């Protein structure tokens, strides 16, 4: 089990139950809010200047440690930098880490899972044991190990989180593949005289990989939290980079006198994770009833 497998399971369960209530198509308030926030993040990623025109690195020692106000929505930090500007501009690097880690996790997971599910039982057995062994180490531990070997930094943190999440993806994909491979419609295709390659390409792979979009959306939230945790522990992105985890870590020093410095970056991590979950479930529901 991994956070991801639980998330995926929940998304599936919720979608299944909702279908019975015939409100699958309805878009709830939560989904709208999540989408709005995701839109904000998208703009902040592509054109941060649109949501926050300032320079995230511009210092102004005279206006350091200012509490949130109209001039500085999220307050200012120890060097007088505007926290809102930094959080907005930090979206790119924070999401980059989350997205890249998720892609790495998905990629490795898809390859491992497919290999395990496709090839003979010997390989499957081996890969399965391997995944189980990897699971004996909680994700963050795995990431820490990786960082110890390759040294800290944003790149290794990304890779570490990606690798740490890969077993989760691999197991879901393998399970999906096994169930698709033994499904009635694949047998039906055999009875119709389809070739193995054609069955693989036309039926098995598309049906196996279809959940990847949902998985990725669900996984991104957790990946961002993990990456932020690594930055927080000083093993990921480093200040003055406007990355959320690094900002949080820097802001924690001033926790007792300038709460806003760590509150807002953390809030963005939380909101991102929440909206990823909500949107992931909405996508799952859509796909299931498309």
């Amino acid at each position, binding site marked *: 089990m991994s956070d991801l497998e639980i998330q995926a399971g929940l998304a599936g369960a919720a979608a299944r139950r909702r279908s019975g209530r015939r409100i699958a198509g309805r878009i709830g308030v939560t989904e709208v809010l999540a989408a709005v926030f995701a839109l904000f993040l998208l703009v902040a990623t592509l054109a941060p200047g649109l949501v926050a025109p300032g320079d995230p690195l511009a210092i102004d020692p005279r206006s350091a440690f200012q509490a949130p106000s109209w001039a500085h929505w999220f307050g200012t930090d120890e060097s007088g930098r505007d926290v809102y500007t930094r959080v907005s501009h930090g979206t790119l690097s924070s999401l980059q880490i989350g997205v890249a880690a998720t892609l790495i996790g998905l990629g490795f997971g898809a390859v491992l899972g497919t290999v395990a599910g496709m090839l003979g039982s010997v390989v499957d057995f081996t890969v399965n044991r391997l995944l189980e062994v990897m699971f004996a180490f909680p994700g963050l531990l795995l990431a820490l190990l990786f960082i110890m070997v390759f040294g800290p930094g944003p790149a290794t943190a990304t890779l570490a989180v990606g690798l740490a999440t890969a077993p989760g993806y691999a197991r879901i994909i393998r399970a999906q593949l096994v169930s698709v491979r033994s499904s*009635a*419609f694949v*047998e*039906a*295709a055999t*009875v*119709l*005289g389809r070739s193995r390659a054609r069955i693989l390409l036309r039926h098995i792979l*598309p*049906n196996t990989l279809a959940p990847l979009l949902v998985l990725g959306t669900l996984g991104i939230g957790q990946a961002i939290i993990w990456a932020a945790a690594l930055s927080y522990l000083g093993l990921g992105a480093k200040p003055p980079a406007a990355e959320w985890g690094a900002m949080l870590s820097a802001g924690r020093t001033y926790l007792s006198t300038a709460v806003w410095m760590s509150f807002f970056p953390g809030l963005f991590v939380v909101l991102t994770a929440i909206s990823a979950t909500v949107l992931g479930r909405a996508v799952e529901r859509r796909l299931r009833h498309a």
Partner: protein
Amino acid sequence: MSGARVTGGGGTGPIPTGTGSTGTDPGTLSGTVPRADAAKPRRGPALLVRGLSVGFGGVPGTNPLIDDVSFEVAPGECLAIVGESGSGKSLTARSLLGLAGAGSWLHADELSLGGASVLGLGEAGWRRRRGRDVGLVLQDALVSLDPLRPIGREIGDALRLHTSLSAGARARRVLELLAEVGLPDGELRAGQRSGQLSGGQRQRALIAAAIALRPPLLIADEPTTALDVTVQARILDLFEELLRAGTALVLISHDLAVVSRIADRVAVMSGGRIVETGATRALLADPQHAETKRMIAAVPAGRPRGTRLSAQDRPHRPEPEIDPAVLTAIVSGSVPATAPTSVSAAAGRVVLEASGLVKSFRMPNRSRLLAVNDVSFTLDRGTTLGIVGESGSGKTTLARLLLALEPPDAGEVRVLGEAWSGVPERARRPRRAALGAVYQDALASFDPRLTAGAILRDVVGSADQSVELLDRVGLAASVLGRRPLELSGGQRQRLGIARALANRPQILICDEPVSALDMTVQAQVLDLLDELQRDLGLSLVFISHDLGVVQHVSDRIVVIENGSVVESGGTGPVFAAPAHPYTRRLLDAVPRLPTP
């Protein structure tokens, strides 16, 4: 409608306060049949329903799913409610206990149990009556017992809730109940959980739980549908005993044969209304309403090959012709001598041959299970071979061997005279077109991502041909753009047949093609298969556990028990004079409409 309104009859509504078990004398419950006579002295019917309407959501009173239904049941009487799937039978049953479901509304002019009105009862009031004044056996028997609790507890629940009996006394009563419903070894059974019981045993445990307090009224929703004929017969015996003891019974079923055996009166439901009521025999012999006629016509049991079971044209629903002679035949269960001969007369050449097929599976405890044991038969061109047997007897495994989805451990399958099993898939692939398959679970047999059009185009290559095929199976071209999930059960099965036909096969293997369908749709599909066989000269292997269906469609029949063939031969002779005790047992258990 002036009736009282009960909202949120299901579990999630507010629970009014003020409970308290009144009027229950534990003393009278300690006997073997504590309330057997308690119901008799009561005046009036055990159940009286007048102008009942039930619906969900929206404005109460609009879009009812149950519309102005009225009936009554006297003590010791059995009323059967029949009707097609979705007509509102189960909803009616649940509404009688105030369990219509979350978000439901209910109107009735009168609704009373044992002469006492239950309209306007609060949740607490309902709780006092449920299980004591009325028992309910749910439709989904296999999952209606908590899999985590011993059945003894489940059965004892009503006693725990409504009496002040001690745990020991309850346990003793549970043992009595188990014995009553025909589950011997009560002490052992009471400790088992539903997962450790067979379907029939579960159904009986469920009935025991419902009658624990001897409620004057028992409502049983499709109590035999999921069961083998042999088990079904035993359950009906149990009901008859209860009726004799004075219990009023509302039996819900779509199976007219079952109904005819035990019901005193029948109410036919359609679209949420009761369209016809009457004494069982009279109603079956002389159906008035079109729906009733259609239902009777759809019964395949005892209907000769080639007889139409369904109406030609669904939208107008003209009444299918019921020749009085045929009706007599149905009712007596014999195949009339005048049965039209099938195309089998023109047949003769063997297209499919199984010889000495053996297949075994390794069980978790390392022993081997012989699923198919030395099965041999031949299928002649243009004929239908029926394969029957109880659940788990190896029918599906046999079908998979025929389709070469699995290699046999021993024996051989030959198709059109050439070796079929034991050759590499590569060699078989070009010849696969000769063999089509129709599955019980049509939905699962389609790639969920593909539309009906894509599914057919995958096989035939062109859109025109797809439309032609659809036409052949009686589907409109409009379904082409839809995914399997968006089709009805009957449409899915037709699409499955269309796909099977696309390769122009000579042989069609059908594994339970109609068991998931309701009677009316089943009739249409059976008619379609019959028609296709006639037009295209198809040879069919027809697998089913439903003897009635097999009897109707087959020229020859193979009966298997535990993987072995116990009897085979022409359908008529086998049904008329079964040689093997197992076949006899199967046939004896099939309920039949009584002779008028």
